[in-house]
């Protein structure tokens, strides 16, 4: 318990310790003993204490020393994280941490690296200790998600722009694509659904780099370093060097036709979820091709011609429209049960709202929808669910 905080709140709300003691029907000596930490308040006093001090939910967390949240961003465009976006992201993450108090705690230590040497070492540390991969093996999205699940590190795919977390989809302005929320032992990685599979894979690798490097508030340098680690995880240098024959189809455009390159790329895409753009950047950084060279332009042309360009939003979140009540109702009624992992955050929000752990106002804030609509949505869910399922088989003796 945070006794210093208790002392400051008593001072703020009451003219004296006696007045506070009187309000919760204990003696001044009892309160004095609490504050001098010679005696702890009995647990049944806590509701009196928090109500008498008029604490907010966050202040309740502070009183009980619940760890504070830190949010690490991966953004495209812009040079700094907008304060409003940071606040919205923190609020979103905190909501999930609150509605499932113990559900997001990681199962094992993630073995942070305290003194990182270079991106390749950090990438191999993540492969070995978190993703159960061989050294220099490319990370594949589905396998990474399944390994992270074992640690209870949740990856939540959320349409950032539709819920107001990104400012603009324009290339030149501030756009969040992923962020990690950490609160004590609890971790959730949020990824924007307006990303292709390879981008989401890269984003998750970038976030894992932040996690093992134990970043708290990241700066530009750390962001760049994490990008290099993610690049190394998805397009490993050694793997590229070991597959010279296949890679040459992209690094030596004169020798191989467009058809050869496309065929080879399709093989990579089928196995590794790579994108031509990602591969172009990887080859450029490994100095196998030059910027704006024929080889580079060929891969970028392949990219713009549509290879791997279908984003998660188009595939799964078409009905997610918080501004259209009927569509959002259909999304929650019909879509979210199709894939319990992919739609986990929405299943959790629905469960929390129908069990009273999330108010209509809060649901409206989180989903960026009118609170009246949110209220109506919850009523529809309650009518749909009834309340008996959670009441069954509960009369067992203590």
């Amino acid at each position, binding site marked *: 318990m945070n006794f210093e905080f208790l002392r400051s709140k008593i001072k703020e709300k009451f003219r004296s310790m006696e007045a506070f003691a009187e309000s919760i029907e204990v003696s001044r000596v009892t309160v004095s003993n609490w504050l001098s930490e010679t005696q702890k308040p009995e647990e049944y006093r806590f509701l009196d204490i928090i109500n008498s001090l008029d604490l907010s939910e966050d*202040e309740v967390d502070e009183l009980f020393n619940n760890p504070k949240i830190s949010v690490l961003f991966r953004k495209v465009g812009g040079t700094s994280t907008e304060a409003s976006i940071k606040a919205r992201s923190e609020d979103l993450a905190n909501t999930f941490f609150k509605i499932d108090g113990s559900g997001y705690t990681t199962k094992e230590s993630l073995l942070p690296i305290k003194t990182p040497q270079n991106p390749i070492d950090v990438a191999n540390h993540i492969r070995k200790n978190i993703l159960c991969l061989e050294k220099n093996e490319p990370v594949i999205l589905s396998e990474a998600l399944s390994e992270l699940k074992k640690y209870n590190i949740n990856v939540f795919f959320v349409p950032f722009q539709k819920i107001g977390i990104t400012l603009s989809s324009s290339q030149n302005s501030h756009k969040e694509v992923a962020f990690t929320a950490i609160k004590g032992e609890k971790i959730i990685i949020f990824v924007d659904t307006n990303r292709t599979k390879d981008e989401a894979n890269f984003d998750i690798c970038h976030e894992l780099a932040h996690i093992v490097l134990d970043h708290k508030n990241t700066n530009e340098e750390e962001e760049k370093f994490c990008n290099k680690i993610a690049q190394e995880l998805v397009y490993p240098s050694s793997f590229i060097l070991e597959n010279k024959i296949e890679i040459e189809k992209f690094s030596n455009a004169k020798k191989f036709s467009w058809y050869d390159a496309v065929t080879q790329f399709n093989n990579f895409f089928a196995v590794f979820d790579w994108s031509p753009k990602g591969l172009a950047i990887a080859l450029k950084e490994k100095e196998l091709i030059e910027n704006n060279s024929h080889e580079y332009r060929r891969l970028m042309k392949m990219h713009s011609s549509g290879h791997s360009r279908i984003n998660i939003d188009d595939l799964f979140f078409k009905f997610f429209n918080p501004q259209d009540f009927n569509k959002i109702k259909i999304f929650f009624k019909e879509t979210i049960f199709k894939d319990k992992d992919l739609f986990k955050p929405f299943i959790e929000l629905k469960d929390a709202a129908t069990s009273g*752990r999330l108010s209509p106002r809060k649901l409206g804030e989180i989903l960026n929808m009118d609170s009246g609509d949110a209220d109506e949505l919850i009523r529809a869910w309650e009518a749909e669910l009834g309340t008996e399922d959670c009441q069954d088989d509960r009369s067992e003796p*203590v």
Partner: protein
Amino acid sequence: MTAQSQSNDKQIIICDTNIVLLMMLFKPSVMFTANYSYGKIKVHQCVVDQLQSWINKKDSKKVARFTKEIIQDTINACEKLSKGIKEPTRPQFDRSIAYISKVEGELDSSQKGSATDRVDKLLLILAYANKAYLATQENTMTNIAKITLRPERVLRFEDLVLDLINLKLLSKVDIETGLHCLDSFEEILNSKKRSLILEKSEEL
């Protein structure tokens, strides 16, 4: 001074949905209206709404188990008992939910039954806000209430029956019939407390 006149008229017992159903099965004419030594029975509207939702739902398992008539009779009995419960304010509700969730999260698995739902949490907060007793038959609720309200403010159905026996408001026949009725609906009581109820009924 009789035991009945010793009861505190100002005290109330807030009941959860399972408790009111057990009361209906056992001896409704006494159980809903008696002056318990703990106080008077109160049933919040959320419990009535929950019972009504069972009736409204198609193919309801609860209706199949208890019959529509019994649930409707329980609603009728409870509606008269819903007045006089002080409601918490929204901030009070939110901060109490935050604390109750923390307590629930810290219970070890042996103390947990089903996770609490909205009605459960509201009843806990109502019991707190009204300085009332909470009557519940559910494990998680019982354990959370023992921590947040005090152990002596949490009652089980068996405690209510034992109180009525002490107050001499139930006869031996009432108890035998009531227990038989609970058995026929496969409502299992705590074995030690059931034995105590039978033992005390012999003294009546």
